[in-house]
């Protein structure tokens, strides 16, 4: 057994009377894709925010590479090796596609305090940025305004920004959301190759993608993990069927 790259231990978050996450303990091992599924309102977004640092947990702990990062803010967790993508694209729409990935490359250097040299003259930044665009197939759109990209291209750009960080673990919030069948298939193929680079914690509604990609699946219902297992385990679990698949199927 290899050490997990990312692990949560008993994460809880309450909003008043509502328990959004309840004692969530999951982990992410090297080379795997671990999918989190669950009906709307199951607490997936809360869990992501707790892992990535947007929300402070009431109790519980987040470990990254064996180190407790619970008390670090979002920036510090990113620098520690978390690469996150957003469900609703968080991109600088007024700027070019290249600008957006360059921001990621700049974040990876952690040296934004350079006020004089134009960013376009910085070969290292540009190289990292273009390499990431190349990998998601957006290289030819580098000079386009981000607002002019199609929805699917924005999802790709979202992943490209995370790539520039060379993270130790990816946390992806519904990367397939809003993609058509073709786009979804492409993204699935891409994520499949990505896992060798760093493991992916994948929150996703698209069941075809989840079943095609996941090494393990955890099912989150009302803030609790009711089952964790392989694709087959989850398909066959009566509990899951009843709590989740039964409703949506």
């Amino acid at each position, binding site marked *: 057994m290899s050490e997990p790259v990312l692990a949560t231990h008993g994460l809880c978050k309450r909003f008043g009377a509502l328990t959004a996450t309840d004692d969530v303990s999951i982990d992410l091992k090297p080379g795997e894709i671990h999918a989190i599924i669950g009906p709307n309102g199951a607490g997936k977004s809360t869990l992501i925010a707790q892992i990535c*640092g947007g929300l402070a947990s009431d109790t519980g702990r987040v470990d990254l590479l064996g180190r407790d990062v619970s008390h670090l803010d979002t920036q510090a967790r*990113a620098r520690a090796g978390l690469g996150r993508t957003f469900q609703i694209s968080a991109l*600088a729409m007024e*700027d070019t596609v290249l600008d957006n990935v360059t921001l990621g490359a700049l974040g990876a250097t952690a040296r*934004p305090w350079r006020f004089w040299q134009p960013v376009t003259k910085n070969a290292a930044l540009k190289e990292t940025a273009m390499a990431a665009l190349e990998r998601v197939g957006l290289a030819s759109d580098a000079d386009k305004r981000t607002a002019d990209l199609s929805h699917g291209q924005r999802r790709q750009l979202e992943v490209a920004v995370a790539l520039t960080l060379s993270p130790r673990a990816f946390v992806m919030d519904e990367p397939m959301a809003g993609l058509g069948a073709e786009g979804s298939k492409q993204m699935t193929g891409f994520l499949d190759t990505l896992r060798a680079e760093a493991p992916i914690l994948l929150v996703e509604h698209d069941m075809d993608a989840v079943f095609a990609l996941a090494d393990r699946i955890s099912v989150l219902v009302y803030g609790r993990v009711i089952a964790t297992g392989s694709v087959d385990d989850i398909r066959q679990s009566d509990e899951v069927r009843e709590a989740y698949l039964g409703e949506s199927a």
Partner: protein
Amino acid sequence: MIAERWINCAVIAGILAVLVYALVADEPFTITLLTRVVILALAAVGLNIALGIGGLVSLGHAAFFGLGGYAMGVLASHAQTFTPLDLGFFTLPGTKSMPIIWLVAVVVSALAAWVIGLLSLRTTGVYFIMITLAFGQMFFYFSISWSAYGGEDGLSIFVRNSFPALNTLVPVQFFGLCFVLLCFALLLFHRLKASPFGLALNAARQVPERVETVGLNPMRLKLVAFVISGAITGLAGALFADLNRFVSPTMFSWQLSGELIILIIIGGVGRLMGPVVGACLFVALEHWLGGLTDFWHVWLGVILLMIVLFARGGLIGLLTGKEGAHV
């Protein structure tokens, strides 16, 4: 449509053409007016870093303008009365030397911007606007109640401060100094906007959550922008005080903060020459409309309303046919 680069060149050429005309026709008042344009533009270039790139709608930049002005007023008044400036634990002599005054103005307004920024950047949006406005007003009332430096009446400086090897009493020489400083500030704005810092700041304006997830601190980026911005506006304040040889609490007034934003909006937010175009237009309107009617602010209000409702992108936006300053 016209390329922005040509408009920028035309603006600088226009200013210099008016200068040449004023020199040939021997109209020192026109040079003074032109110096006013340049200084207001400098103050607005400062604000444009916070507002245009960082998206920080500061309605309190008069605080820095005023601090720069008072830095000049306080130092020069001590120099002209030959009394040392008592800072409690040590004393300083006053000075009439522009470079020293500028340095003090920049440092003092940068410090103030740092403190105000630390407090007001804890919030965003409307809170930020109201808080910067309130802190600006705080300096206004402070300057009124601080009677040692003139209180409500302000401070007069009898002779313009000096600059090595120049005679600043000659209007065109003082204009030249201000113009060179403006050009430096414009160069800084241009480089800053294209620099890694500018890229990150520009992203922090649009998607702070993204900036965080790539490991950068959007608040710190904005704070640094706010400090640089305040320092430049403070420098402009020191020049403005030297132009009038007078400082008073009106340099701290909230109307001035509003007017600085107006300059930028008229010209074009986040554009290199937006503040310069805005300042030209503003002073021209002030001079021309102000000569026609005592109530020229009504017309300024109407023009401003029309720009906000119908011409986003300002004058440069109209001319280039591009609404946004970016891409």
